[in-house]
């Protein structure tokens, strides 16, 4: 058995009641944390990882990620994307996320179930990256996604069809089933475009998918951007709501009552508003993103006040749209405390993935996923950007060149 002690750091366990950075050494055996040690406590036959001067937090969990949508030049038309080009960018994105301290991602959809295959390559030790929790193709209504974007979905009409597709997805090995239940707030193009947030899949179709997921013991998540779509999903038993951009009092009450978490994905709105023009999306998209963001933040604040659980996710579309930006936006734009933001990216995200007790905390029994920071993120959430090293399952997977450490 390989033993490692992470020594000299100040450790934050966000699952604790009132977490602070306290001096503590961590004993890791193979891939798990097995004990909290007093600083300096001796352990026979253990390697040491020097964390002196660092604040140690759990590896972050991005609850809404798309490995195959990151950074591909929007000027390359989708029909010219080869799988090799997509893989090249996916590996780059996974590296960027891992290097920023994200040790697990929930893939909220990938065409042709390619995230399932990528997960298999990770398990085979062929490629590195945040541990992928895969959704595969989205279940969408016939003609649901915009022309050019359909490849990420399997389209269904009627509950029988939805059930059939859910069964096939489960057989293909997905960790959860993703539903696409509304158009996006703020629009887009195409002949099927309705008013912002118009509902797409019907409740009976959603319910059929949820039933099949429940049989398999896996969760569902639903892209739902408006109150009407969110309410349908909740009545049908969906386990997690993505985006939740526009919510009314009734939707918020239902979310709270059924204790269904939301993943607001502020990062993508910020990214489109900030980098949209330079990335070639045009003024209109950037402006719309900013307007949509304001609606989303207002909904988020009301949901939070009602006690709805919130997990952090980026909906990553480029390599600057990192989870640390999501945490920063939760604090700076939505009024979260740094601790609340850190919990959204660890404890609550782990719950959403049904991996609580295994990831998202730093205590005995958890996987040894951890992030060494130069300064305390509870003082300033921007400290998440100062990464000294990342461990995943007890292995160092990213480390800063010490030669270039500068104050």
């Amino acid at each position, binding site marked *: 058995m390989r033993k490692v002690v992470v020594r000299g750091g100040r450790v934050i366990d966000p699952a604790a009641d009132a977490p602070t950075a306290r001096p503590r050494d961590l004993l890791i055996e193979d891939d798990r944390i097995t004990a909290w040690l007093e600083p300096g406590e001796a352990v026979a036959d253990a390697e040491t990882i020097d964390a002196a001067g660092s604040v140690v937090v759990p590896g972050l969990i991005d609850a809404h990620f798309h490995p195959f949508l990151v950074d591909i030049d929007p000027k390359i038309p989708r029909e010219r994307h080869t799988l*090799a080009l997509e893989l090249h960018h996916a590996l780059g994105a996974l590296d960027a996320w891992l290097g920023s301290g994200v040790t697990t991602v929930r893939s909220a959809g990938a065409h042709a179930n390619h995230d399932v295959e990528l997960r298999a390559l990770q398990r085979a030790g062929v490629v*590195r990256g945040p541990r992928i929790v895969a959704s595969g193709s989205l279940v969408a209504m016939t003609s649901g996604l915009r022309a050019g974007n359909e490849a990420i979905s399997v389209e269904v009409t009627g509950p029988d069809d939805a059930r059939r597709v859910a069964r096939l997805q489960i057989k293909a090995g997905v960790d959860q089933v993703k539903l696409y239940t509304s158009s996006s707030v703020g629009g887009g193009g195409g002949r099927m475009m309705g008013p912002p947030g118009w509902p797409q899949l019907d409740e009976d179709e959603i319910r059929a998918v949820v039933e099949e997921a429940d049989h398999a013991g896996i969760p569902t998540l639903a892209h739902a951007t408006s109150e009407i779509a969110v309410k349908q999903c909740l009545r049908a038993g969906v386990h997690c709501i993505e985006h939740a951009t526009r919510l009314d009092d009734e939707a918020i009450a239902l979310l709270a009552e059924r204790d269904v978490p939301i993943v607001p994905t502020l990062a993508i709105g910020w990214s489109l508003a900030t980098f949209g023009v330079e990335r070639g999306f045009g003024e209109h998209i950037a402006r719309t993103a900013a307007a949509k963001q304001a609606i989303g933040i207002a909904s988020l604040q009301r949901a939070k006040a009602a006690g709805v659980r919130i997990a952090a996710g980026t909906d990553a579309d480029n390599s600057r749209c990192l989870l640390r930006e999501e945490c920063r936006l939760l604090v700076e734009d939505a009024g979260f405390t740094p601790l609340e933001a850190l919990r959204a990216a660890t404890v609550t995200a782990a719950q959403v993935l049904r991996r609580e007790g295994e990831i998202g905390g730093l205590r005995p029994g958890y996987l040894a996923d951890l992030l060494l920071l130069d300064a305390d993120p509870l003082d300033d959430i921007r400290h998440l950007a100062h990464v000294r090293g990342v461990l995943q399952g007890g292995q160092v997977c990213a480390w800063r060149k010490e030669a270039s450490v500068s104050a």
Partner: protein
Amino acid sequence: MSGTVVRVGRLFDGRDGAVRDRAELRIEAGRVTDVGDHGTLQRPGDDLIERLDATCTPGFLDIHTHFCYPIHGDFQRPTSTPGRLGMLTQGIAQANSWLQQGVTAARDVGTSFDLDIELAELIAAGSVAGPRLAPAGRMLTMTGGKRNAFDHMKDEVSGAVAARRWTREHLKRGAVVIKLYCTTLLEEDVAGYLRRALAAPEGARDPGRWASLSVDEIRAVTHEAHKLGRTVAAHTAPAFGVNLALRGGVDTVEHGSDLDDESIALFLETGATLVPTLSVSHHQIAQEDGGRADPVFREFSLRRWDRIQHNVARAFDAGVRLATGTDPVIPGMEYRSEIELLVACGLSPSAALLAATRDAAASLGVFGNDLGTLEPGKHADLLLFGADPTADIGAIRDLREVWQGGRPVPQPVDPTGVIQLEASHA
């Protein structure tokens, strides 16, 4: 425009197999502009790289690779997503590894789903480090030539017109070379066939039940490819198949475990190249040590190995052009052994090096025009060795530097190693 002068102890430029002392190369914009004696080429503003202990050769060419072939998996896996990402991941890794071994250009002869065409684009764009790649995409075979419905490495045709149409379509898909799977064994009892083959007298016709592309089908393909300056590679096993392929005008014959007198005559008449893929046959013997239960497989592999060695010597002595190709479809293979095995078959080190450079490039049509030798106008793809491999072929294991396009190639990429983080403004 300023350039770079690489001054070396000895130069094997690949034109004729000779080595000249105290030579230097001048490189500009990725290509060789001049070759001369020490101290003759440097212009104002040029960088000078001195490697006075080194012997320089052109970069090697491996003209029989399958970078995306799922060595560790099964390409016939009957699922809706047959491991394409896995194949690509391996393709990237193998392209990296071959480049580090000095292979600066390669011909990839057959890949499921045309993935090598996609890989070649990534390499050409500089996104992935690897040999300049001439991809074949999927192969063409005759009706019945696929192993089963999940064999995505091949398309089947019957008839010259169908073959012509397929070739036109496949060239548009991006194939730089056409790979023909010319003969296929249609035997249910393979061990039984091998026993018959081993028992057959020397020089007798192969006793197998074979399907083969016909001469007119092959000719239709070579005609279409040659119009574009592209070339055709033929996988064939028995001698009659080799002869059909050669009469059909193919540019290279792969494997060549069975050649008769007519084959040798046809090679000489058509100018085609033999790519004996010694590495895979040699590796297979080691692989079958203690492998399959029926000893006939190993016995046959050993006999085939004898025949290939004999055929290589015979073809070389007759003046047939030879080129290096490894056929790396078994775990643990490498490029360099192909050159060493050519020497083991009786070629001189410098003849083997020509098979790895000039003669391999000469088999590739337009794609090979700027490859294979170090002379003005060619790509500055070069290797620097610690000793002279024409004196002792063992020196190819002392490879010090690999240059591609006038630049040292980047360090190998480890897709599972530790990510180096940049310092932030802490």
